[in-house]
């Protein structure tokens, strides 16, 4: 029984749906699966029915039965087949804060023992290994060894002005490891006093939130904050928008006087008065707004500002951009729950990039890079996928 998972506001807002179906029209999971039961509309209906059946007295009076376990499992399966991209919330004319409701719904499904089995794997791996892939802590900064001339200290310094919080995807997935390598080289060119946390960096905790276990993030939050404070750092920089959003919304950073930046904000700020020496790149690029960076943190302009600052870059916009940007398919733990659906969403995204005429898509998220690059390769599409950090590094004169 998980009705306590919801706030009063969420329960009231769930009643405010007008069934306009705009959320279904823009949902990437619905369009990729052609299954309207994955829409916000369907989920809100299900949630209302569920909660009414749980209200003991009215349920008895109206002859409503408690939800059947199999029915609940079927509903849970749909609740988890969602990238938590927030596009439904952005378009909802009733202003329902749907993303919060989806996270609470997942928590409800976990408490009701109806969630998919993979959810327990996420918990087990994060508890035992501090990352969702069950890789070793000691390997977290192994990407440094991929550099031709790695620094002796491996960028793990006793104290520094800036902590670069790498994030699990860039730390452990070889396809994304080129991003921290590029960023470390840019930081060196900018003479940024930075450090990594190395083995002391734990997963930011998002996979637990997305798995419906937000009440289990306390230890990881406390550990990461402590690790940053030990470095005497004043700022934390993220190339992962999800880590950035987690810190912004669920970490006590203000209490400790920390400043948080997505790398696009940080680079835009640092290079405003002192531009980097960038060489010309003759390239047309489309920019994909990562969901957690754009709709989540409201960061739209800094990445575009950086792209415009690179000589020779022609920036083209996707038909759906900024607040309306369509998810790549890599969010909300979907890749772990339903990899096929994640891949179908990615394929749709690739098609929308190709429609712009660009053959290079730039984003500002390591998971988007993985998702899109994997899709392009699987589908044998000649599309280059780059993080903005990689593009800046390519343009850097060294």
């Amino acid at each position, binding site marked *: 029984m998980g009705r306590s998972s919801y706030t009063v506001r969420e329960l009231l807002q769930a009643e405010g749906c007008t069934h306009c179906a705009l959320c279904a029209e823009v949902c990437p999971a619905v369009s990729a699966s052609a299954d309207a039961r994955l829409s916000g509309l369907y989920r809100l209906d299900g949630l209302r029915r569920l909660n009414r059946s749980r209200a003991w007295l009215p349920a008895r009076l109206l002859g409503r039965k408690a939800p059947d376990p199999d029915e609940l499992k079927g509903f849970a399966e749909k609740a988890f087949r969602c990238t938590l991209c927030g596009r439904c919330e952005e378009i909802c004319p009733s202003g329902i804060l749907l993303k919060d409701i989806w996270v609470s719904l997942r928590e409800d499904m976990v408490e009701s023992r109806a969630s998919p089995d993979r959810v327990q794997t996420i918990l087990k791996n994060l508890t035992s290994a501090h990352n969702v892939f069950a890789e070793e802590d000691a390997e977290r900064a192994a990407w440094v060894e*991929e550099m031709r001339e790695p620094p002796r200290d491996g960028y793990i310094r006793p104290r520094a002005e800036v902590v670069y919080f790498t994030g699990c995807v860039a730390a452990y997935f*070889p396809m994304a490891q080129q991003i921290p390598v590029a960023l470390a080289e840019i930081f060196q060119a900018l003479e940024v006093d930075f450090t990594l946390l190395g083995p002391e960096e734990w997963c930011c905790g998002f996979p637990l939130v997305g798995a419906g276990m937000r009440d289990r993030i306390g230890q990881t939050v406390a550990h990461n904050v402590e690790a940053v404070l030990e470095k005497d750092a004043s700022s934390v920089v993220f190339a992962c928008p999800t880590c950035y959003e987690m810190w912004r919304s669920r970490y006590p950073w203000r209490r400790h006087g920390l400043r948080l930046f997505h790398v696009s904000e940080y680079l835009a700020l640092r290079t405003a008065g002192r531009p980097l020496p960038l060489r010309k790149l003759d390239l047309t690029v489309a920019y994909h707004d990562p969901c957690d960076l754009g709709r989540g943190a409201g960061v739209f302009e800094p990445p575009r500002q950086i792209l415009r600052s690179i000589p020779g870059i022609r920036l083209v916009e996707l038909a759906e951009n900024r607040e309306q940007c369509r998810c790549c398919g890599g969010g909300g733990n979907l890749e*772990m729950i339903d990899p096929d659906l994640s891949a179908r969403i990615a394929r749709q995204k690739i098609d929308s990039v190709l429609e712009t005429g660009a053959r290079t898509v730039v984003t500002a998220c390591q998971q988007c890079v993985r998702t899109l690059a994997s899709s392009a*390769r699987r589908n044998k599409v000649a599309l280059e996928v780059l993080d903005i950090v990689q593009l800046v590094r390519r343009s850097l004169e060294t």
Partner: protein
Amino acid sequence: MQIQGYNMPDDLYYEEHHFWVRPEGELLVMGMDDFAQQMAGEVVYVQLPFEGKKLEAGKKFAQVESGKWVGKVYAPVDGELAQCNAELESHPGLINEDCYGKGWMYKIRPKDMGEISKLIHGPEAVEKWLLADIEKYKQD
């Protein structure tokens, strides 16, 4: 040699994590074996470290990615990386299409060519090792 649906050529040397090795002049050519590529599924990324990288037998020197699976590549011998198959940068699926041919991964300059004798080689040894691994992965 075919073993339970896996093609394992007799003339190759095998590293225990399912990478094959073949002498080619002063170098060793290395790639993923048929068992590993079938287990991994569609390979979407192969790490191609810089040439000249020092290798130590048994130590990880690269990684391979297929969907949510990340595989580590261990050096079969001491030496240095002489060449990477640059084709894999844009076509990592070559490993699935032709793991013993166009999907080769690395060329290694061994410190001592004689070290390959420590690898798994010969029909009997290969069959025994592979059957044990098939059983092991069945249980996993």
